């Protein structure tokens, strides 16, 4: 099937099998391997990307469902090393990651959270990442990372 969409701001047109999952399209077809697969069952959130600005799990939607829409992956969040997204900075500052496998998904989820709720409480942050599993950090430093990003956001306003 023909598929045209924008990925990280760039128009893409491909012919894909209708059953191809979005995560595989991103990883295998486009080589954007920052989006990870952790469970294939919409539980772990490692595959989270933004679809038209909303955080979605790319392991349980088909690539063709993204037809005509805009996808942002972790690779598209920062233009270069000197222009990290505040959430990326927060993860770095607060040691919000260890093995880093869940991290792209965590960052995409929490970046979307801060879009809709720029000053979340700890409870709200924990609620937002309840669909993202991290086996390494015990979550606390992830919460700190998001709070750090939120603080930066406040300073900016």
């Amino acid at each position, binding site marked *: 099937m023909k598929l045209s969409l924008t990925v990280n701001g760039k128009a893409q047109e491909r012919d894909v099998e209708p059953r191809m999952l979005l995560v595989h399209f991103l990883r295998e077809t486009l080589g954007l391997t920052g989006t990870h697969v*952790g469970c294939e069952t919409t539980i772990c959130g490692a595959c989270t990307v933004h679809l038209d600005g909303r955080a979605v799990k790319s392991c349980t939607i088909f690539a063709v469902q993204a037809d005509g829409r805009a996808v942002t992956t972790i690779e598209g969040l920062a233009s270069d090393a000197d222009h990290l997204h505040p959430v990326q900075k927060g993860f770095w500052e607060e040691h919000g990651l260890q093995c880093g496998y869940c991290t792209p998904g965590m960052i995409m989820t929490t970046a979307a959270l801060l879009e809709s709720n720029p000053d979340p409480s700890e409870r709200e942050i924990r609620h937002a990442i309840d669909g993202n599993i991290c086996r390494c950090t*015990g979550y606390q430093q992830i919460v700190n990372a998001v709070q750090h990003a939120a603080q930066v956001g406040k300073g900016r306003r």
Partner: protein
Amino acid sequence: MPVRPVSVGERIKRREDPRLIRGLASYTDDLKLHGGLYASFVRSDYAAGRIERIEASRALSRPGVVAVYTFEDLRGTVGRTPCVARPEAGRDAEHPLLADGRVRWVGQPIAVVVAEDRYLARDAALDVAVEISPTPAVVDPRAALAPDAPRVYADHADNIALHVPATGGPEVQKLFAEADGVVRLELLNQRLAPVSMEGRAVLAHWDEGPQRLTLWTSTQVPHLVKQSVAQCLGIAEIRIRVIAPEVGGGFGAKIPVYAEECLLPWISRKLRRPVKWSETRTENLLGTTHGRGHVHEIEAAYRKNGELLALRGRVISDVGAYPSFFGASIATFTPLMMPGCYHPKAIDVEVVCVYTNTMATDAYRGAGRPEAAYTVERVMDEIAAATGLDPVEVRRRNFIPKDAFPFTTATGAIYDSGDYELALAKALERFDYAGARARQAKARAEGRLVGIGVATFTEICGLGPSTGASPIQRTGSWESGVVRVEPTGNVVITTGVSPHGQGQETAFAQLAADAFGIDVNDVEVLHGDTDVVTHGVGTFGSRGLVVGGTAVHMALEKVLAKASRIAAHLLDAKPEQVHFDGESFRVAQSDRKLGFRQVAEAAHLWNVPIPGEEPGLEAVARFEPTGTTFPFGTHFCEVEIDADTGELELIRYVAVDDAGRIVNPLLADGQRLGGIVQGLGQALCEEVVYDESGQLLTATLLDYALPKAQMFPRIELDSTCTPTQLNPLGAKGIGELGTIGSTPCLVSAALDALRPRGVTHLDMPMKPERIWRALQEAAR
């Protein structure tokens, strides 16, 4: 006085992170080689049975399917699946790379399909028809001990893989006879799935030209993989390069060298094309080693004053269907560590490792120690309940006093250093124990189920010495470190530890930065590549910093010594007159000096030969520890249970740990927090469940419950510092600490909450349904 600020002890943020937070790091499945194929496994649907027929023609007829292999194709060309801790003859078991006519657990690989892409390989794997005549399976390790139990290996006399008998010491009998009371416990330490978020993945490339195999694999131990694959496939180890690229967690399950890691190289050599496989989460839950899986039958003799006199009983360890890499040896840590922070006069605990028709068990964060800590902590609480003493008081009365270190326990472990009283005192204050008990009394009066839990614990870390290593391992428990100074004075470190999230790139860079007075960013730390790294062992058992870091430290000292001699020559001084002040080499009582970078350059220019020295500035060191370290801690928590639903809420958690000297508190806190939550996962929700026929009921993350962010309050950390004398860093290791303390701490709290309602025992995990049932039963 050093000129530069010292980075060791500071919260230095990680140099690993920029690539990871941008999605630019490469894990094994992210790699792609030209002409690469994809492999998919056909796995057993039965826990036990005979393979009658494997029919692959349909799979092979699909365009794009390159090959289907079964055991028959491998026969005679490969060895068994690697294993370093083999049971003795008669109890050992062959574990072929693919099932050789029999299947012994659900998920056992039977055939492998190789195709042009991932989707095709998986489709074709479904086309392979496997006919199995099922035979009776045995799943429960206690049931497997029955004389008439189905045998996992028909040619074995029983299902026992390893039996370490109790010593039968008269001392224990005597102490039990003298005791004021005896506590009896039968405790289940349920099977857990390690679930690293990145599953296992392997990419093999046999390069026919140079006759070399390159193997990318998500492992904790690249050098052990190299040795093992060489043995299994009969390829000289010098023809093999193993690379562990970015590794997305391991937790012990990526120590074993698996059949898949041997099969993919075999396929690549056969087809002369690169081939990749990465496990699905279901494959991970079915076919990557599990952890724990113990039953402890324990009796504890105590005195009225709360003193623990002796322990006796049996540890039954479920090793699953075959002896995995470290396999049965893991459980032998358990009796060794059973004394915990206390000093019972005698221990007489036998170990029985049992085969069952389930996935093999092996190391999982803590490996053998959490099981011991759980049991002895439950014993402490039961003694408290029996004597009417406060659980904290019982622990305190049994502590090994701080002036008794080094201390040899009744089981022969030599504890390096400790001050258990200090950690306890700090935790009591931080938690406000008295206040918490007062609030609990009030809550109880209102009919609320509030519980306070405590665990005081120790663990064994920093493994060596090598006497504990298996000869089949071919390398001991030492670790290597290489420090290479470039002519510019920038530094490359290579280390045999192969971290996967622990942050050693940063910690080791700190060591070098401080040693030479350079910036952390001017140090590169390389690991996880057997062509780049001199021999090494890997990362497990909290040995990264303790053993690997010490090797790096030793190499740094060697380099510094040579640099100092070179500086002395250049400064026209005697070596003993020169000292390094953290930035420059200075001649005593003069203003003559040379910066580190100047010396580095001179060491490479070598236009002035220096007597007795070679050009260059590089050193290799290997550290073989003389003993193991024993970090420790005290954890407290408070829970409240909803009597109507059985739901448990964790209200507070305070951890005071002592891991000796800390190189980077930011990383150390990360290890502790992650460990605590992982241990709480066992206490609260995690369990691998097989049904009676051996079907895995927890084969997806929908069924296997992992800890999630909303389950936890903010965990409060504090620490004490009792350095070890066993290494120059004074570091004790930290990776498993939290896991060991948190499981018993939470169970202690849950039972404390439930005791007034008559519930005195409950096996983990403390799921609402289980708690609710226990409450209903107790009310009857």
